[in-house]
């Protein structure tokens, strides 16, 4: 499929038929999703109805908007009225959202056509999509490997060309890490740039919704559509956001810092090699790249424990509402306590239960000061250290994930090994900073080549600069290698709109 802006322009001009575009996407999903399992639910009838609506708008001479006719996939933790909202959990099996999230409202208002609900780690807790209660998603580059997570379904759907644009959520790396592992561009906006209204809460002080797309220009368009103040989310900041589409794309003179902590020995050698090559490309286009020694982010090594305490504490409270009383399935017991224990004990998966227990412990009387409050104090230090770097640099750069996509099952036995997937993304989330992952080459190993992602991190509320720099990098880089496996055999591109 072509790029998002081209599709929208074609639909707005009447050159492309939104119904045909939806059919094309649905056909690709029908052809390939049995193998990939990017989607938890595909409502073809709803997608067709929506596409017809957009077509009717065009025919009536009305402008459907900046995403006119663009088929989009939405992670199954972002509410779209009438659609499933399972968070890949059995505790929400069969649940349909009675209202739409701010992001879904914005997408519909700009003409997008939602085609399906993407797979994820249960309640976004995981980095491989293996924690989905409904089975994992597979990486299109190598179906024996994970797509990353938790937005693995969204990343794989874009990578396989099933949709041109998808939306995910990030708490500790859940957009950028699967984007990196699947070879697509994923953007995590500044905390508070995009409304969380309608995003099922995991770690409320960290959660952000963002796009996954073929490139940074598409991500910028998607960001422009979804970002903005929402009175229903008191943590969004007021006022408008500078357009990322309109931001100047220039690498010359850009001050890029590369913290030593981003590229230490724990990072895979191939990943380091591709990252260094990307940094050299930036330099060759006039960016002033400074490779910093270790010590500028002295508390970054505490990010994983701090992240897991803060996010799990908030999650332990956020997930209390799933009690089987008002919605979702209930495992009935004889008494109230037994009903709670059975519902929550059997319908939450093991990783979700682990984090609820961890968070409950960290908030308990007598432990609050030692764990939760201390974690908040370290979080503040990490933010301050980042802010100090932004007094010297416009952007920070480094690899997104310490390693490329790993084999299904390789890390499931050891939770901590899985948690290390967030090593380079979690600190950025703790600081609430905008950050993008862009494909920067392939890691060569014994098996299939695997994508590597370069992450660029900006100062708070500098989302448009981060996306513009990513777009400039992509222009310098040229077309990246695409995963072609699932592009063959799909129907021809959508025809004219008449």
């Amino acid at each position, binding site marked *: 499929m072509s790029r998002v802006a081209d599709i929208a322009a074609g639909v707005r001009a009447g050159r492309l038929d939104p119904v045909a575009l939806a059919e094309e996407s649905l056909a690709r999903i029908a052809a390939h999703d049995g193998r990939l399992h990017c989607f938890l639910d595909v409502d073809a009838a709803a997608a067709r109805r929506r596409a017809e609506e957009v077509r009717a708008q065009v025919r009536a001479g009305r402008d459907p908007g900046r995403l006119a006719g663009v088929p989009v996939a939405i992670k199954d933790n972002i509410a779209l009225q009438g659609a499933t909202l399972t968070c890949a959990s059995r505790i929400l099996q069969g649940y349909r959202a*009675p209202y739409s999230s701010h992001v879904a409202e914005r997408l519909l208002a700009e003409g997008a056509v939602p085609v399906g609900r993407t797979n994820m780690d249960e309640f976004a807790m995981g980095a491989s999509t293996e924690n989905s209660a409904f089975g994992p998603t597979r990486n299109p580059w190598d179906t024996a490997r994970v797509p990353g997570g938790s937005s693995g379904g969204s990343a794989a759907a874009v990578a396989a060309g099933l949709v041109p644009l998808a939306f995910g959520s990030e708490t500790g790396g859940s957009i950028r890490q699967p984007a990196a592992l699947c070879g697509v561009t994923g953007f995590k906006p500044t905390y508070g740039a995009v409304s969380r209204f309608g995003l099922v809460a995991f770690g409320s002080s960290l959660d952000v919704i963002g796009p996954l797309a073929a490139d940074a220009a598409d991500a910028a368009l998607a960001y422009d559509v979804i970002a903005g103040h929402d009175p229903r989310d008191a*943590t969004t900041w007021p006022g408008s956001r500078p357009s990322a589409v309109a931001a100047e794309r220039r690498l010359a003179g850009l001050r890029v810092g590369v913290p030593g902590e981003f590229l230490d020995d724990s990072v895979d050698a191939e990943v380091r090699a591709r990252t260094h090559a990307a940094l050299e490309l930036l330099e060759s286009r006039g960016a002033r790249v400074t490779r910093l020694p270790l010590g500028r982010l002295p508390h970054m090594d505490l990010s994983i424990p701090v992240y897991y305490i803060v996010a799990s504490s*908030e999650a332990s409270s956020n997930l209390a509402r799933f009690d089987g009383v008002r919605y979702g399935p209930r495992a009935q017991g004889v008494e*109230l306590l037994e009903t709670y224990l059975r519902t929550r004990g059997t319908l939450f998966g093991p990783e979700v239960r682990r984090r609820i227990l961890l968070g409950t412990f960290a908030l308990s009387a007598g432990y609050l000061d030692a764990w939760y409050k201390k974690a908040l104090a370290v979080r503040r230090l990490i933010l301050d250290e980042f802010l100090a770097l932004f007094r010297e640099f416009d952007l920070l750069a480094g690899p997104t994930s310490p390693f490329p996509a790993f084999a299904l099952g390789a890390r499931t036995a050891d939770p901590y090994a899985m948690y290390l997937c967030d090593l380079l993304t979690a600190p950025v989330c703790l600081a609430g900073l905008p950050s993008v992952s862009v494909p920067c080459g392939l890691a060569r190993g014994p098996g299939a080549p695997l994508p590597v992602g370069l992450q660029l991190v900006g100062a708070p509320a500098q989302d448009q600069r981060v996306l513009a720099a990513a777009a400039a990098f992509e222009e310098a880089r040229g077309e990246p290698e695409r995963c072609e496996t699932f592009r063959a055999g799909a129907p021809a591109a959508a025809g004219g709109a008449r």
Partner: protein
Amino acid sequence: MSATATRWEPVIGLEVHVQLATRSKLFCRCEARFGAQPNTLVCPVCTAQPGTLPVLNAQALRLGVLAGLALGCEIAPRTKFDRKNYFYPDLPKGYQISQYDRPLCRGGALDFEAPDGASGRVTRHVRLVRAHLEEDSGKIVHPAGMDLSLVDLNRAGVPLLEIVSQPELRSPEEASAYLAALRRTLRFAGVSECDMEKGSFRCDANVSLRPTGSSTLGTRCEIKNLNSFRFVAQALAAEMQRQAAILDAGGRIVQSTLAFDPQRGRTAPVRTKEEANDYRYFPEPDLPEFDVDPAWVEELRRTLAGRDPAQRRQRYVALGVAAQHADALLEEPERAEYFEAALDAAPGVPAATVAGAVLVDALRLANERRIALPELAVTPARLGELLALAAGGALSVQAMRTVIVAMESRPGEPARAVAEALDLLQVSDAGQLERVVAEVLAREADMVARYRAGKTGLFNALLGSVMKASGGKANPATVRELLARTLDAG
């Protein structure tokens, strides 16, 4: 008094939950109304659908600040919300959004009169610890004869202010008086209806005993959900007896939460400290800390000026209203407001007269029609007009009472017009009355002669004749004066 009752003295503190009189709930736009069909005042936010977020109701914050100011509290310049975590089917989110370590209001006090001894009264000054905003839970209903429980979430998310007193109350009677004073202050500040029957004023009581005269504190127990003033006093008395019996027997009080059974007049434990919840309070991440603008607080403070019932009482008494009438006027804010508006509309009429008319005539009218004072067609302005008419001598007291009843069924019509229509206006015009007096005296020449000869007792008979001749419409005071002048001149 028993020996036990004098050996131990109670230390009582009260926690009162007051429902703030907002139209909508604390964190969503659902109506905060009592008495609707179950689960009809709900939305995705207050039923805790996944993905929903709270948005603070500015009106609730405003009423919270007003309440704090009315109670003399210090308003926090910066405050925040916290989550109180526990599981119960009436708590949709699995946590209550409340305020933990930075309440909206701190300090403050309540001054009130309480019974002292057998018949005396004493003025008490009880300090407050704090007052904070929080959301109400839903309600669990156990339908009779069915083996299930139902949850009604209409109340879930309704704004409450929890007001915590220092443990400075010294008897159940004082506790009752404190509650009455608190209720009155809040109602006059316009922040809550404080209607116990509708659950908008609920009380938990903490009580411990200590040896009389001691300054140590004993182990306290908390009695939950006392929903009438009478039950508060009864429950405290029962709990004091229970604790005294244990202490007298050399026992030890176990810190616990109790419920009061009004039928048996007894308190019974619900749970002990060992079973107490760990609420895992932490800052609500969905609602950032916020500043409370001091200029706005001062503006609110100004709107409260003159509304305090104690200040109003002083003012009424200074205007000549009897103390007991002042108290009666201050039983209900609407009564006091009606009185003050009528007073404004009746220049020159003594405040005591206006008070009497409100307490006797207006209230009787409202009671007979089973409506509230503000709903009367006889508005304070019309009552004031009527009273001014009467004070000018145009109406007798009896006629005034007839007119006010008629006015109620003739909304909008001026008092004078109603009195005229009923032909009840008194004649006070001296020229007109002089003619009547002259006529009567001419007719009763015999009586006049006897009067002038010293039979002064005939004055009243002559007065009666003049009144009769005027058809009862003459102003008796004017007639008396004219008659005296004419007779004594002759």
